[in-house]
């Protein structure tokens, strides 16, 4: 530091006016987009936890039969409306590992209700990797090993049983197979339609844009629930559960695309003004190339976030339809179908555990929302 006679201050630190022209200024930004997004997303704790939870949930789908002690339509006629059973570890102050107490049911003819008496003198340890009813692993391989099951002479109903004596826990884990995937299939349909129409409208503008927008407005103005009802009613009742499932998810997708198309369109409109798009056009790139190489990659992340945020709507849609008895039908198992059994207020009051399938719905929907929020916040890694 030095001060000149005229009161001037001049920094003494050595100064090199020649800068290295090729040195990256922000080497932290020198990475593909997904790396930058991941770095930012990692800091969003709630989103990260939700993401991991959903990932585990989806990975568990093919193993539903292994995880559940019973198959979904397996009845135990002696245990109708069985309340949830606790899994204990200590019996009379002594540790003996996970076990259940056997129960004996009887009909209370005064209140017309099933009552169960627990025999707390006989702990019956749970069995692991035991052979029980046959199921299909990965929907293909026949298997009969279960992660855990009740010993002979006892039952293990973690979440209780329903009016036919089926295990609610097992049905929830089987129900996840349909309830979780309905969103994915629906979103795929809605994605294809939404991106297609949104991109065309946004890129070409003019009358194309007008037509697409009017179509969106008409679709949006239709009352949703009656339309679902009408479309599902049109599904022939002699179709198998799987075809009904596909049709339901496609119906959900068909009605969901307008929202996505609007998002795509507005994103397109703003991206089209970016100079790299103009540059590509002036280089002579055809519209299809501009859309594929420049526009789509740059808003794919936005699309994924908005898709994540609209999966819950699909799951809820399926649940609503099935709850009303218009979606999936027995013997298919989904969370909505299970809730169908809980329609009766009286039965919820007496057997509250029949409404337990609401819990996984709430948790999954919340997780998708948190994940979507986290993704949306980390989408634009280039702005600080």
């Amino acid at each position, binding site marked *: 530091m030095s001060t000149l006679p005229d009161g001037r201050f001049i*920094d003494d630190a050595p100064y090199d*006016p020649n800068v290295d022209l090729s040195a990256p200024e922000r080497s*932290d930004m*020198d990475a593909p987009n997904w790396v930058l997004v991941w770095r930012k997303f990692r800091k969003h704790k709630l989103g990260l936890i939700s993401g991991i939870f959903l990932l585990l949930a989806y990975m568990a789908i093919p193993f539903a039969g292994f995880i559940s002690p019973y198959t979904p339509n397996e009845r135990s006629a002696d245990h109708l409306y069985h309340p949830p059973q606790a899994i204990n570890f200590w019996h009379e102050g002594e540790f003996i590992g996970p076990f259940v107490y056997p129960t004996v049911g009887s009909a209370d003819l005064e209140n017309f209700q099933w009552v169960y008496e627990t025999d707390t003198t006989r702990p019956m340890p749970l069995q692991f990797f035991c052979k029980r009813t046959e199921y299909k692993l990965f929907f293909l391989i026949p298997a009969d090993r279960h992660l855990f099951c009740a010993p002979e002479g006892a039952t293990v109903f973690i979440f209780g049983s329903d009016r036919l004596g089926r295990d609610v826990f097992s049905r929830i884990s089987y129900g996840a197979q349909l309830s979780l995937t309905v969103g994915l299939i629906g979103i795929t349909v809605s994605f294809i339609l939404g991106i297609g129409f949104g991109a065309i409208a946004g890129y070409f503008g003019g009358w194309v844009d007008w037509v697409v927008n009017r179509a969106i407005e008409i679709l949006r103005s239709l009352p949703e629930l009656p339309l679902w009802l009408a479309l599902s009613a049109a599904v022939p009742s002699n179709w198998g559960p799987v075809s009904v499932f596909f049709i339901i998810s496609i119906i959900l997708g068909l009605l969901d695309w307008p929202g996505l198309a609007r998002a795509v369109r507005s994103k397109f409109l703003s991206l089209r003004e970016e100079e790299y798009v103009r540059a590509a056009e*002036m*280089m*002579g790139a055809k519209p299809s190339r501009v859309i594929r190489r420049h526009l789509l990659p740059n808003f794919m992340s936005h699309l994924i976030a908005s898709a994540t945020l609209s999966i819950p709507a699909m799951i809820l849609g399926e649940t609503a339809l099935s709850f009303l008895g218009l979606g999936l039908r027995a013997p298919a198992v989904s969370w909505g179908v299970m809730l169908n059994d809980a329609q009766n207020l009286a039965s919820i009051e007496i057997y509250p555990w029949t409404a337990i399938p609401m819990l996984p719905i709430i948790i999954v929907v919340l997780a998708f929302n948190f994940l979507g929020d986290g993704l949306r916040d980390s989408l634009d890694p280039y702005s600080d």
Partner: protein
Amino acid sequence: MAPLLDVKNLSIGFGSAPPVVAGVNFSVSSGETLALVGESGSGKTLTCRSILRILPKTAQLRQGEVMFGTGEARANLLTLSQRDIRDIRGNRISMIFQEPMRSLSPLHRIGNQVSEVLTLHRDMSADEAKRDVLATFERVGFADPERAFRAYPFEMSGGMRQRAMIAMAMVAKPDLLIADEPTTALDVTTQAQVLGLMKDLQRDTGMAMILVTHDLGVVANMADSVVVMNKGHVMESGPAPAVLGAPGHGYTKKLFAAAPMIPKDPTPADPLPDKDLILELNNVCKTYTVRAGGWRAKKQVHACVDVNLKLPRGKTLAVVGESGSGKTTCARIALGAEVPDEGSRVLFRAEPGAEPVCINDLSRAEKVAFQRQAQMVFQDPYSSLSPRMRVQEALTEPMEIHRIGDRMARRDKAAEMLRWVGLDPDMLARYPHAFSGGQRQRLSIARALTLDPVLLVCDEPTSALDVSVQEQILSLLERIRDGMGLSYLFISHDLAVVARIADEVAVMRQGVVVEQAPPETLFYNPRHPYTKALIAAQPEPDVHRPIDLAEVARGAGSSCSWPDMYRFEGVDAPDLIQIDPGHKVRCHV
């Protein structure tokens, strides 16, 4: 006597990184103007924001003190309670921000926003506040203060909004005004007037002023003392005449060398040859039809009116004008990206002596061939490269589109072009976002060159860049033009930038070319009042060449206020008359 504001050893940082502002010292006394000069990332904005404690949430004040006030009331602003600092904000220290378009609330009338300061700090009734606000409006140059009071921000132009912002900052008669790049977003003639206004106000009220700017020209016109910052450190500080007259630090010298200047003693140049034209715009007009809203008839907006430009091969033709002058429309028409009105002809000759092609009626195949020969360099280096593409993909894309060469050949060509623009071919595997604005502008120039074009249209290629980088890019463009034999159509709002690169300049105003000549001739003998205003408004980094506000006022106003010889209304302009060889002016004979 202690200065009004004394910043001592100020350090600001983010996270655990080294400080972005380190050990900054300066002081301002009443009636004095201090200029904080620096390029982007120098920490000048953070420094001035820390005075009012309006730093971003993640910034930490690590060290230092900011003493403000006189006598009893003197306090360290950095340690005041929130309540006390609120009493100072807008009341004793006020601030003007860079973006006049964004710093006013769009939903409130200007008058309400400005009088809020008084009702908050002075306990005034609405009527009293309005009286004061109207007086301030009159002072900042609103012709009809009552109307301005009732207006919404969107009804006003950028310059008017910045006046409103100044009124808002001044209405409480603060002791210190902090202006953060107050004129950067404005046109040069508006900038001159706003700077003049700020100077007058300061003289009248005796307040102190901190002016944050990157423009040495603005410093020379406004400041009493200067603090030059680079990367968070003060490089040099001292009285303005001393620092500007004989810069002591290497960085200041570099900034000075880079500052574009209008030549001091221009001599008229020879006119450009009129043969072997690569690009010719003949009677080009462009009219946009704008919906007026509601049931009203559609309005016609004339972006270009009867533009005639000739670009000889190997030369640079510059089109200069303020925002809305139609210069970018001209460039887009020249590249065939915009279709001009009937009767306009744009002729392009790829080879010397070849039959010209008319760009407006090309077949698809001819258009592709033309796009290979004419390329564009864009204004914003941050948005002209796709963030998803590696440098290599971005540079080879033009060749992919035109199916030139194979993978290896394309890669080699891209590497060669990187060397042309002064970069290392190692960059090919990197992503553009790792680089600074200047590096990215080089990349986008390299991309434009990969097709071996003969014509390059540069749309304000340096206006988003720092001064020292701007200078490098201009030298690079000159080197490429001479090395590759290119011809440039150069669009700019800055006469001084154009002065060094152009062989001929066309000055545009509201769609009309008002004067056209080689730059030296233009500076030697500007004839049109608007050209004179542009030249006079250009802030020069020389304390002895202040802005001539009277000249600016004569030419920058409406075309009805010009002398009889040049006056016209609407699009009903007189012809462009040749007054000297190669010097054309739009005037009545």
